[in-house]
């Protein structure tokens, strides 16, 4: 559990699978996080115009605007470049680590990781 007296960190979950978004939201709320959701990169940008999350949980393979492109946009944005990214993907393999280094992601997790692993990655990423 994310104990403490200050406001719970706000996590923006970006994933195109509606079922997984719902489960991720319920799990993170169970761990006392506040959660925003977006179904793709474009929706995520709209959410970011309204609220600033403490960390973004980002799927890679999404329609309209994929996670890698969104991450690159965020990295070059004056207001959003410092928001930590935790990449979560079902894509297999090659170049994953390289991608993480290129995008400056705080963590790179492969689906289906255990909930504790994701929560621990978010805890480490939130300043």
């Amino acid at each position, binding site marked *: 559990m994310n104990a403490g007296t200050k406001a719970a960190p706000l996590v923006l979950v970006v994933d195109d699978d509606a079922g997984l978004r719902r489960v991720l939201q319920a799990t993170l709320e169970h761990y006392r996080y506040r959660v925003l959701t977006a179904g793709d990169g474009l929706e995520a940008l709209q959410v970011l115009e309204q609220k600033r999350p403490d960390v973004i949980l980002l799927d890679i393979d999404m329609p309209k605007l994929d996670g890698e492109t969104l991450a690159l946009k965020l990295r070059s944005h004056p207001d959003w470049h410092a928001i930590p990214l935790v990449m979560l993907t079902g894509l297999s393999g090659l170049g994953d*680590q390289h991608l993480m280094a290129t995008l400056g992601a705080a963590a790179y997790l492969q689906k289906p*990781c255990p*909930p504790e692993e994701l929560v621990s990655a978010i805890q480490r990423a939130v300043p």
Partner: protein
Amino acid sequence: MSAPTPLGDEVLSRLSHELRTPLMSMKWGVNLLIENALGPTTRKQQEFLKTMEASIDHLTSLITNMLDLAKIEAGHMRLKRQRLDVAAVIEAVVRTVHPLLGYRRLHTELAPVPPVFGDATTLFQVALNLVANAIKFTADDGCITIHVAQRQQFVAVAVEDNGVGMAPEDLPKLFHKFTQLERQEGHHPGGAGLGLVVCKELVELHQGRIEVVSELRRGTTFTVLLPIYLESVALAARFQELMTAPRKPQDVIGLIAVDLSGAWAVTEDTTQQPHQHQDEFIQQIRQHVRPRDVVLPMTLPWVVVMIITSPDGPALVAQRLRDALPQGAQLRFGMATHPADGPTADALFATAQQRVGLLLLR
């Protein structure tokens, strides 16, 4: 009839995504219910949820094996081989399987052996698969022993059980896809016969091999033979990986030879062997290079770092290491690049060693 075309890397990656995303929804959804996060559940419901969780884990393992096999067969599996202590891998496997043992006994007999040239993640997967298999086919009061010993130029890891064993006519079929399911149908739950096929392929990617001896109702021993670490082989193999990795036209392969002898004096610790110092340096260096960069121990006092980079990249990396490492000021660096300084890793290393101390770092 033509052979089936192997799936492309792009297709495999997409397939992986399409299969893993719903698996994650299922696993996490069931986990929420088990944790009573969505309201209280009854004991009976908990029993069913635990069964579902085990089935999801089994499905995940099956899909992982299938995708691994497809990746190997398509030639897309890339190993990250290092000088590796097999005992550490076995100890990690023992910790992982502990909850699965029930009343079975698990012993380890680890003779001192030289390091192997192996990919830690992959060899953990192989050893875990063999030990989990032994547990599955051994009675609740049975016994499993993991032996590690040197056999000529190999390190042999043997997983021995006193379980159900196999008939001699079954052994040749053991490493064929899906044959295990037929053999065990009606006798044992689980297992699609892919785990051992993946193990064999992964071990052969290490230039090793798997042997099996078994006797029906007496038990089975699987032995994995892995080549001992040889620095010339490791240097050439890791260089070749970088040669075949994607890179920009202007990029070079940079080799940085790091001479640790100066730092040795300031960290003199009589309780540690020199190679332990070297291992510590390597861990520190890894924290300051990219995950895909190569860091290899060579004959003391040398360590090699190999990277794909722009032509001035090696000097920048050396500078970064000197600034970031606690003993940085005592380290000496020499650099060489491919193609300018030679066609092989051996040639680059020799040139880089000759240039140690010539480059003035800030």
